[in-house]
């Protein structure tokens, strides 16, 4: 192991670029093929407002669903949905087999909102790098972050909600 801590140079701390963090993992299409590698076809399925309302009251919930098939055999469903955490927006995909069991959960992308950053100038000042180039800029695309754990509770709740939606609106199609 080799480690170099990036510690303060003192009061003359250089300002850091304040970039809200975002990560893009996979596209919807990649998620479809990762969840159902043998599928030959993904058919978008409309989710009516009544079905959505029967599962979760409130506006703005707009999950999307695709039915995965290999030739004429139904393999299951892929849902793509978003949840909003304390300060983050997460897009995720859930694959459900034809018996209604979850087979995979993948995060598609993750975005932190702005705000909360300016008041943290002091926090940032502790770590002003001595490497010359601004490490924030160097690592703009890929950031390894340690510290305050983000809960995945919102995603877990989102998956439960999609399972209820599946039962309410789509399960009947798997039984035909």
């Amino acid at each position, binding site marked *: *192991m*080799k*480690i*170099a*801590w*990036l*510690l*303060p140079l003192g009061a003359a701390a250089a300002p*850091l670029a*304040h970039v*809200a*963090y975002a*990560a893009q*993992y*996979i596209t919807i299409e990649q998620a479809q093929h*990762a969840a159902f590698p043998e599928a030959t076809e993904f058919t978008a399925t409309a989710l009516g407002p009544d079905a959505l309302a029967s599962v979760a009251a409130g506006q703005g919930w707009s999950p999307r669903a695709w039915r995965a098939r290999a030739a004429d055999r139904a393999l299951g469903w892929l849902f793509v949905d978003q949840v909003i955490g*304390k*300060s*983050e927006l997460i897009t*995720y995909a859930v694959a459900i087999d034809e018996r209604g069991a979850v087979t995979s*959960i*993948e*995060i598609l992308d*993750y975005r*932190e*909102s702005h705000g*909360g*950053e300016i*008041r*943290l*100038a*002091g*926090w*940032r*000042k*502790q*770590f002003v*790098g001595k*490497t010359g180039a601004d*490490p*924030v800029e*160097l*690592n703009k695309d*890929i*950031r*390894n*972050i*340690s*510290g*305050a*754990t*983000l*809960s*995945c509770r919102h*995603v*877990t709740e989102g998956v439960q909600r999609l399972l209820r939606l599946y039962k309410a609106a789509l399960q009947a199609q798997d039984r035909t």
Partner: protein
Amino acid sequence: MTAAPIRRARPLLGTFVEIRVEGLGVARGARAIDCAFAEIAAVHRLMSFHESGSDLDRLHRTRVGDRIAIDARTHEVLAWSARIAASSAGAFDPTVATRQVERGLLPRPASTWTAHPRADWRDVELADSMHVRLTRPLWIDLGGIAKGYAVDRAVGILLDCGAQQVCVNAGGDLRVAGLRAEIVHLRSACGIAAAPAAQISDGALATSGGALAARTWRAARSAASKNGRNGTLADAARTVSVAAPLCVVADALAKVVRAADAAVTRRVLREFAAQALIASPDDSAGAIFGTAA
């Protein structure tokens, strides 16, 4: 030949686990990442405090004094726990779950007996590489250290698959492997912003204490100063990050730095070739301990 990095994230271990590999093609990279996620899920199933059927669940249901068979991986984590508990004179102790159940912080396991209030890590007896025995009734929680171990296992699998550069991050317990040094950012406790804090190659970093909300910072810090110095290097309001060769060690040592007195902390850091950064939530400077010098 350089292939573009592949990144995936899944909700596992109660947090988001992010894996990045470089040096493998798209198909091989995706397969390697699937294997690594599967291993993390396996570690979770074996070492979960809550899940019925985990090794810990079976241990908590067994009769005290009985030898029970456990997975070699659970055995390995228990062995690390025992070693770090001994080295830190109990500042790290996986049987702290007994106290946490009493205080209602953890649900009561399905044991027929009640844990002995003074039982500790010395009452967990590791036999050969597959068996464990409790010599007094107690409850074990491997939460954080198992998370660190899962990261190490995932890194091992990715390297075995031929990856050249790897980063596995389980909610802040992260390990970097490969030739290139990588910058790790620290997320502040009171918000979403992160700042570059360390440059690591072939090593792990775990952070503890960053979960306090902004409004509790001041209260925690004033409580700590009111209570007077108890001799630890970090008060309640500080974020402790530990860098160590393995993530299983980094995670456990972050708790040691928080709980042990200064002399024990320095000794343990030295023994495990680790370093600690203690950062305050305001604009005062962070301090480093365990630097070889």
